[in-house]
């Protein structure tokens, strides 16, 4: 089933997502993003040099987790245009990270592309680790495909 913009409204919650993070999650994500910095795979470096409690998820991998969270909701026709996120605290092995999201607005631009603006958080228990705002294009109807937009017809 394709999520279309008529099924989306401001205030709507996205389905939650929880994931138990392990050291493997952190290392796999760092290497998948070609991030070789030691605080994402070397416990001794992370704790003794960076002063953190453990290795922690790297920024590009968190972006990939946000992408997964958003497109789990939209389905494959959803096309992310813009994403901004702020790291407030780190996500460590043995944390259970929980994603929550809300639609803050919907709109249609001058090119006829429909958009949903989202606020998303990643928390571990009571600890807010990351906040994100995202703008995702959503089909206007079952025949619309945001991925077909190019050049001036794509204004993220």
């Amino acid at each position, binding site marked *: 089933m394709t999520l279309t913009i008529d099924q989306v409204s401001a205030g709507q919650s996205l389905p939650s997502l929880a994931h138990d993070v392990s050291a493997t999650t952190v290392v*796999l994500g760092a290497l998948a993003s070609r991030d070789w910095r030691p605080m994402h795979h070397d416990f001794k470096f992370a704790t003794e040099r960076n002063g953190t409690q453990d290795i922690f998820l790297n920024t*590009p991998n968190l972006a990939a987790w946000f992408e997964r969270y958003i497109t789990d909701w939209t389905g494959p026709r959803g096309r992310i245009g*813009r994403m901004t996120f702020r790291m407030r605290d780190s996500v460590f092995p043995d944390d259970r990270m929980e994603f929550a999201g809300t639609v803050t607005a919907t709109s249609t631009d001058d090119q006829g592309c429909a958009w949903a603006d989202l606020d998303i958080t990643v928390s571990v228990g009571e600890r807010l680790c990351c906040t994100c705002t995202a703008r995702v294009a959503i089909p206007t109807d079952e025949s619309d495909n945001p991925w077909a937009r190019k050049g001036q017809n*794509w204004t993220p």
Partner: protein
Amino acid sequence: MSDLPPAIAELIDTPQYPVTANFPVELGYSYNTLSATENGNPLYWDPQVAQELTGGPTMPPTTLSLWMRPHRWEPGAEEELVALKVHFDLKEMLDLPEAIMSDNSLILHEPVRPGDTISHHQVLRSVSDVKTTKLGTGRFWSIDIVYTNQDDVLVGIESYTGFGYRRPEEDPS
């Protein structure tokens, strides 16, 4: 009035380090990221869906930064190769031994496809006055990375905000 050293102020808004990746975009990188995040989006796993929606395989948009990250080592390299060189330049120029990234933004344009060759350059956008946080004393800075494909078509712009700092016990002041 800013207390920023002139040599750093001169770098603001100046494109630096234009680089063309020395390896092509490969589908394997897509699977690494999808696996690491347990992302089952059929756009990246089902060739029929990819053909229908994007005319063939594309990379997950948030893999954009992959294409500015060098191999950690390659023949002829005399030192560790690092991504986001402007970030490391600032650490050295400002004598701030530690750094973290606090904010990241992505603006996504033309999809990246397997076989593409991606070029990028870095632009220092801002450097703050000296600030003290729970990590230590240092400065925030913002760096844009602009990515284009082999046809010089914009594929995305990534912005990082970093905080370079000296831990309290290391601060000579």
